[in-house]
């Protein structure tokens, strides 16, 4: 799905750089297709790439291993969750091929544009979009309940809550956030479906409905969703930094407390997406304050990560490079978010390419850089072989160059006043002077996309040809590294017993610079 999402990005970005020229590999992009590609790119990348990889993919593999469990608490529910997700993917892909094509009203499916099929000319594509997302959320909900139950009931002997690796904490907090936030959106989605098919009018002004209500329901889910993606990514980074700097994680407990505080705050920030949508101005100030406030716990976590590196014995493996890259790029995303969090500044930059640049600097490091860091780090555990470090570093270099080239210019494009939903920038004279920035961004995107080829080849070729890895090749502490590589059925050969915390590196007086968290019983 990431490749599909990337291909869609290539199509509309080419259109922006060279308006009305045929796109190599596709042909001429029309305005309706442009809207469809943008909508489906956002949908796929958020709901079908970031969420399943970070929460379900890493969570399912690592969570039982890290707490010393033999399996998830509900293995059958897990399988049902997977097949429900698979079904949702089929429904979404099918929507491209129905009459009228896939949904084209923006990935936030705002009514009234989405509530009345006549506005976009997309009938079945919109209905299937809603159905696919609802199925996907049901699947993720099943997964989240499974994560929480597994953590609360299947921890190994000695695995107290404050001995759990940060990744396990993050997966659980993310699952709780998802569980609390998803209900209103599923309800809103079905109300929207009722509007589209039965003309009920929940969100149609002509029928007495209120489009703002949908925006509230969407963002009540949508903003905690950002943290549902971010937390597992921060968890991955927290596992990698201590290993490759041979130092304990700085501020283990404060990171957990700040994550919990951020989790609570994430439910009182959603309306910052609606500052210029016509909400009651009395709502704007509290939401502006809470938005700026939520940056504090996350800033704490990131600075704790940076402090972990202080005077560490750092080795720049590919996993570590991606982890460091994630922190650097995400900081830029966080800092630019302050602009959007302040009502006065947001009124100016809202719905411009500044916002596009900001959320890509937030979500790309989370979704891709952290994921790549995790894959390079846990690949030996997954498959018993290493990925090639050389090709990993080529992959890292091309990804970082491509990403920054693609999105850094968009801050300038946005500040210059370029609205993000313009199909053909050449139609507006005041945008001509920044056209070269679109060209630069598109070249960056092409570098970014081609930069993934070494990774894909490396991933599949290393399955057979990669250097063999022993059980604990990185000399790491957490429990998954005492399981065989790859772990067999039921994960561990004997039940592990946890005797210490997860990040005890370079303990003074110890014979070696790492002390495994668990011992075989």
């Amino acid at each position: 799905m990431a490749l599909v999402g990337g291909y869609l990005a290539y199509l509309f970005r080419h259109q922006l750089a060279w308006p009305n020229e045929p796109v190599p590999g596709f042909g001429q992009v029309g305005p309706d297709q442009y809207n469809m590609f943008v909508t489906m790119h956002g949908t796929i990348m958020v709901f079908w790439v970031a969420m399943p990889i970070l929460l379900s993919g890493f969570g399912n593999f690592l969570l039982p291993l890290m707490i010393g469990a033999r399996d998830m608490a509900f293995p059958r529910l897990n399988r049902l969750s997977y097949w429900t997700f698979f079904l949702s993917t089929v429904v979404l892909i099918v929507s491209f091929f129905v009459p009228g094509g896939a949904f084209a009203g923006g990935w936030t499916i705002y009514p009234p544009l989405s509530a009345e099929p006549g506005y976009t000319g997309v009938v079945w594509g919109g209905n299937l979009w809603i159905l696919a997302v609802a199925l996907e959320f049901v699947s993720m909900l099943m997964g989240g309940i499974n994560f929480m139950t597994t953590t609360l009931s299947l921890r190994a002997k000695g695995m107290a809550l404050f001995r759990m690796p940060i990744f396990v904490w993050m997966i659980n907090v993310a699952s709780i956030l998802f569980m609390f936030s998803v209900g209103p959106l599923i309800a809103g989605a079905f109300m929207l479906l009722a509007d589209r098919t039965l003309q009920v009018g929940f969100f149609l002004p002509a029928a007495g409905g209120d489009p703002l209500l949908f925006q509230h329901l969407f963002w009540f889910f949508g903003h905690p969703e950002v943290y549902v993606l971010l937390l597992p990514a921060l968890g991955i980074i927290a596992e990698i930094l201590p290993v490759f700097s041979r130092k304990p994680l700085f501020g283990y407990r404060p990171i957990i407390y700040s994550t919990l505080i951020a989790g609570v705050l994430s439910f009182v920030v959603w309306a910052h997406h609606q500052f210029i949508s016509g909400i009651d101005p009395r709502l704007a100030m509290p939401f502006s304050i809470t938005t700026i406030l939520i940056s504090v716990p996350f800033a704490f976590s990131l600075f704790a990560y940076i402090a972990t590196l202080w005077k560490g014995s750092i080795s720049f493996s590919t996993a570590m490079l991606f982890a460091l890259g994630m922190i650097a790029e995400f900081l830029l995303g966080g800092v630019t978010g302050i602009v959007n969090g302040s009502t006065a500044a947001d009124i100016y930059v809202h719905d411009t390419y500044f916002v596009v640049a900001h959320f890509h600097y937030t979500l790309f490091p989370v979704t891709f850089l952290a994921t790549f860091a995790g894959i390079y780090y846990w690949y030996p555990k997954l498959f018993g072989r290493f990925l090639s470090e050389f090709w990993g570093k080529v992959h890292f270099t091309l990804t970082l160059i491509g990403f920054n080239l693609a999105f850094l210019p968009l801050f300038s494009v946005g500040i210059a006043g370029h609205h993000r939903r313009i199909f053909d920038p050449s139609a507006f004279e005041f945008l001509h002077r920044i056209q070269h920035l679109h060209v630069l961004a598109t070249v960056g995107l092409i570098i970014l996309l081609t930069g993934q080829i070494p990774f894909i080849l490396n991933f599949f070729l290393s399955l057979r040809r990669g250097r063999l890895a022993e059980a604990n090749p990185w000399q790491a502490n957490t429990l998954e590294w005492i399981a065989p590589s790859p772990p067999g059925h039921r994960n561990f050969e004997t039940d592990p017993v946890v005797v210490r915390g997860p990040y005890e590196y370079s303990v003074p007086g110890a014979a070696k610079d790492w002390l495994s968290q668990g011992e075989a019983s």
Partner: protein
Amino acid sequence: MKPKILVALWAVLLFLLSLSLLLGFWGNVVLSTILIFVIAVAKAFLVGAYYMRLKWEPWYILWILLGGVVCLFILYFALVPDIIRGR
């Protein structure tokens, strides 16, 4: 827990539901609304405690449930200025 107890609880829940419906026909709108909400809360507690087995779970499980209720109130009260007063 014995199935007999669960069935008995189900009967109690049905009785409370009927009571709520009957209150709808009562002339005193304010009082009947308050009572319907009280009955709804009581039903929710019974379902949570026995059918969801929260009565026998550790205390922190209850916090997870209460977190959801808090979120519900946050959403509801934040919608008031836009959706209810805005009309």
